[in-house]
């Protein structure tokens, strides 16, 4: 894992509280699972029809009928349940998930999220991402602050097709933590090694700074 990703993962795990039902998206979010304190009773939900995802199986113990939403072989913890996809999404759409943590391509200052499509490049598809952002009680997006070319991914307006409009509660990048509300985008935390000037240069979106700004 890159340092940036590691920083994101270490910060993002604090979003998860004991007793929560959580859906972790594909990519960086999946890595967060390993960091959840072992004394927490957290149930991880998967669109594939599982509440209570366990660790990856041991070699030779893979079950072709048991996968997560990323189609990776997984296990189920004691107390887990399996269900069909209509039930999986009744949970999601019905607001029963306390939290979903998803990866992002772009986030706008209004809390719009784009994470499913690059026009003309791939057919792909949104999978369950649109359902998650419109249904979960709390939507946290994790992504690297800038793209590979060093360009801002936190923008005034998303240039890519949206996954959801005004759906992000919190954005966690390797440089900062932002919250979104009707008053706009607020910087809540900034990475220890980063100055506000530097952050502003790497952020296209306008944001205000929380009076009790913290570092992480």
């Amino acid at each position, binding site marked *: 894992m890159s340092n940036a990703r590691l920083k994101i993962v270490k910060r993002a795990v604090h979003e998860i509280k004991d007793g929560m039902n959580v859906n972790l998206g594909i990519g960086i979010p999946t890595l967060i699972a390993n960091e959840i304190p072992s004394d927490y009773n957290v149930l991880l939900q*998967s*669109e*594939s*029809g*599982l509440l209570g995802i366990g*660790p*990856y*199986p*041991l*070699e030779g*113990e*893979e*079950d*072709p*009928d*048991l*996968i997560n939403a*990323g*189609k*990776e*072989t*997984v296990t*189920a913890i004691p107390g887990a349940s*399996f*269900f*069909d*996809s*209509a039930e*999986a*999404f009744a949970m*999601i*759409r019905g607001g029963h998930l306390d939290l979903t943590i998803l990866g992002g391509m772009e986030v706008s200052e209004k809390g*719009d999220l784009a994470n499913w*499509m690059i026009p003309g490049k*791939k*057919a*792909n*598809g*949104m*999978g*369950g*991402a*649109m*359902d998650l952002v*419109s*249904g979960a009680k709390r939507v946290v997006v994790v992504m690297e602050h800038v793209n590979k070319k060093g360009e801002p991914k936190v923008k005034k307006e998303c240039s890519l*097709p*949206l*996954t*959801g*409009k*005004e759906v992000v509660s919190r954005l966690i990048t390797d440089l900062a933590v932002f919250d979104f509300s009707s008053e706009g985008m607020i910087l809540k935390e900034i990475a220890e090694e980063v100055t506000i000037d530097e952050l502003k240069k790497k952020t296209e979106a306008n944001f205000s700074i929380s009076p009790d700004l913290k570092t992480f």
Partner: protein
Amino acid sequence: MTKGKIMTSIDEAIHDITDGATIIVGGFGLVGIPELLIQGLRNKGVKNLTLVSNTCGVDDWGVGLLISNRQVKKVIASYAGENKTAEELFFNGEMEIELSPQGTLIERIRAGGAGIPAFYTATGVGTLVAKGKEHKEFDGKTYILERGITGDFAFVKAWKADPLGNLVFRKTARNFNPLAAMAGKITIAEVEEIVEIGELDPDQIHTPSIYVQRIVLGDSSLKRIERRKVRQV
């Protein structure tokens, strides 16, 4: 054993599927797919199919077999990302892909099976998915109207069946299957094992027999794993 709805072969199970049919296919990626029915349909060669499926499979497996074989006119799916042929045919204009968010797609299939022609959901509001759809406010929040889906046929994969057509699924291989079973005018179940009538606990049947018209034993399926992940001891 009572014959009930048991077919003697895959070919018999799909004998009346013709060009232009709409088929709802269970599965999540390659898990819980009716793989022998799909192969049978590939061999049969019927064309201009409309498939309703969570994904487009991969190039050489799952519904991807039918796509690669140019048998498909249109796919309604939530994800097409693992199938390069599907992407190519889509960009060439040779095949239509209607992308529906996964939760909306499965609810549309359930709705079709449950006699609900349309329902409102917040999923997709403000995105490409909402384009051209009716918008309506309920209690101050905006929703879009989505239509139910039914199929001429549904292909489902189950773990166990009895000759009446009661089905039990296993782990995350359940996924789209019980809903697809509801929404097919003729639902064909490929199953790993057929047990006697009365052996399945009636409290533990996932799909009641009323939804299933044909059963075919498919104990030679490969159950290919799409992404094998293991942990170190």
